[in-house]
């Protein structure tokens, strides 16, 4: 065991990055928000680059919302795009069929998605693991068929949503949703609510035995994720000027948003957002440079990255920091089963 005393602790790079991350997260988030708010004011004008950045914010919201349920609470949803679709159609229908003002229709998207999630949650949240994943996939696929069948959604021909706000407005709408969600998730992970979600992920039986009403917390996390995903869906409709069952419940995105959360690192705030920005940019660049071959390359990028980073980028960072922490304080080799005498940590006498 390398001699490491209390004061002169040698901190591994991973640890430094994380402690800075945790310590000043509020400041970091504010800087992040300002840094992203500046471009349109200064040099970025409406067009391709603004669209790509707006889509990065969109995917940041989708990945972070999935992580709230999948990464933080340990309930791997495979149907989050159902909330996105419900949000998109709610705004689309209210705005075009009932003449509701766009901002109100946009907010309604989040509210409707929450109601939809609460109802679905009653049935689905009783299941766990594989069964939960399949049930949520079933909900998504059933929603696709429903939207194809109904008149008001325009059936499979979809709805044209022209005349929405300008590209710049959408840039700030999606940025705002992302920043608000990051702040909320950051705040919650420091509160009892956040801890309980992680407890449910690690050992739901233990949490129940310690007095936690897990259904209440699972539903809260589920509806919170639905709110943000639904809101993003509502905004996306007019942003893309057209929605149909294939785009509103995009099955490719349904897997991509999970890849982004996992590649970035689940259970953190930065992880999913890093994953979303990175993967979306990679997809846009690959589409542009290797048109026609892009899906083959994307497929291999996903495979290689998952194999290389099972924990995701931020996750691996945290993983290393924790390993160092354990060694430094004389704990036995991590995970070694023999009950090492915990009392003989450096410098502190066991209280006999």
């Amino acid at each position: 065991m390398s001699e490491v005393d209390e004061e002169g602790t040698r901190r591994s790079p991973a640890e430094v990055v994380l402690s800075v991350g945790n310590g000043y997260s509020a400041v970091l988030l504010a800087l992040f928000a300002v840094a992203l708010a500046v471009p349109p004011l200064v040099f970025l004008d409406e067009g391709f680059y603004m669209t790509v950045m707006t889509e990065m914010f969109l995917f940041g919201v989708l990945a972070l919302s999935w992580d709230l349920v999948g990464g933080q609470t340990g309930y791997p949803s495979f149907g989050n795009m159902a909330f996105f679709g419900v949000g998109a159609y709610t705004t689309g229908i209210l705005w075009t069929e009932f003449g509701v003002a766009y901002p109100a229709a946009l907010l309604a998207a989040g509210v409707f998605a929450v109601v939809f999630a609460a109802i679905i949650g009653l049935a689905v949240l009783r299941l766990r693991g594989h069964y939960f994943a399949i049930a949520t996939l079933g909900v998504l696929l059933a929603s696709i068929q429903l939207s194809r069948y109904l008149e008001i959604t325009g059936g499979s021909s979809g709805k044209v949503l022209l005349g929405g706000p300008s590209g710049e407005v959408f840039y700030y709408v999606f940025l705002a949703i992302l920043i608000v969600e990051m702040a909320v998730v950051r705040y919650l992970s420091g509160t009892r609510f956040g801890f309980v979600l992680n407890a449910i992920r690690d050992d739901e039986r233990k949490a129940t035995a310690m007095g936690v009403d897990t259904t209440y917390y699972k539903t809260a996390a589920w509806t919170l994720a639905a709110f943000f995903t639904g809101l993003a869906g509502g905004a996306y409709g007019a942003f893309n000027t057209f929605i149909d069952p294939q785009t509103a419940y995009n099955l490719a995105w349904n897997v991509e948003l999970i890849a982004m959360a996992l590649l970035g690192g689940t259970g953190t705030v930065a992880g999913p957002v890093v994953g979303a920005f990175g993967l979306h940019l990679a997809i846009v660049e690959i589409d542009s440079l290797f048109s026609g071959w892009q899906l083959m390359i994307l497929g291999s990028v996903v495979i290689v990255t998952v194999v290389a980073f099972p924990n995701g980028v931020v996750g691996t960072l945290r993983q290393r920091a924790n390993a160092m922490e354990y060694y430094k304080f004389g704990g036995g080799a991590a995970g070694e089963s023999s009950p090492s005498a915990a009392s003989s940590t450096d410098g502190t006498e066991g209280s006999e």
Partner: protein
Amino acid sequence: MIVEQLATTAGAGGAVGAIPLQSAGSIVQFVVNGLLVGSIFALVAIGFALVWGVVGIINLAHGEMMMLGGYVSYWAFLGLTGTGTGPGLLVLATVPVAVAVLYVVGYGLQRAIVTRVTDEDMFLTLLVTFGLSIFIQQATLQAFSADPRSIGATFADPSFVLGGIVVPKMKLVAFVGTLALAAALYVYLQTTRRGRAIRAVAQNPEAARLVGIDVQHTRAVTFGLSAAVAGGAGAFIATILNVTPQIGLNYTLKSFVIVVFGGIGSIPGALVGGLLLGTVEELTAGLVSSQLTLAVTFTLLVVLLVVKPQGLFGSGTEGST
């Protein structure tokens, strides 16, 4: 047993009462259509259930194994006949080719890629197989173009008519063929040494390793067998319908539903689940409206999951993560 089940399922399917009275004959026709098409769904789902139950992986690229099987048997048939058309039973000669080729593909994929994430979180396996599925899809598209391919195996007089019920011969061949492949797999698993090893790994990989079973090889064999039966199903699909690079995903999603109907990891369950799904879809198409077939199927999936997560035959416990 199946008939009452169908009655209840159809009943659960909603508006049966409200539709115009169909002659009893046509309801039987729909059930027959359902069983004929359901057997193919079942065979694909059996491979899916095997990999899920034994290797603990949700294989999103499973549909692509079926698709590749379709292309292999298409080219084999073209090789055999030279013209692409030939007698109906000749397709059976191409099935073993598809099965063998896909066994090798499945085995190779597990060893090269899938094995690296087998013990990881379920969702990582989902991502790797998702990457595989779009890779295989695009590679096939670049190699064979997107034109639909269909095996021209025909019978002089294409269908039997028994008491007003039309039964296409080619579909009957496919029905018997798929059941035979399913039975062969089941017997293999129950009787042979390797079969027992596979079931042992399914129960407890660590224990299996302790008693000297090469878990790695066993999992690769399982993946190979799963791809092989899917390849066999692909051969029949290429004959009855057609095969394009994009058809895989739809059969993977159907396998999800069937595995839940039948229970994760249970082969008989997947067989019954497949037949049930085919029948439910055809009955909905026949009695209600074909636009609702998928809506009924997926709603049934959610309802069944909530009511009986283990599925009809499943042994998996409710919380098995």
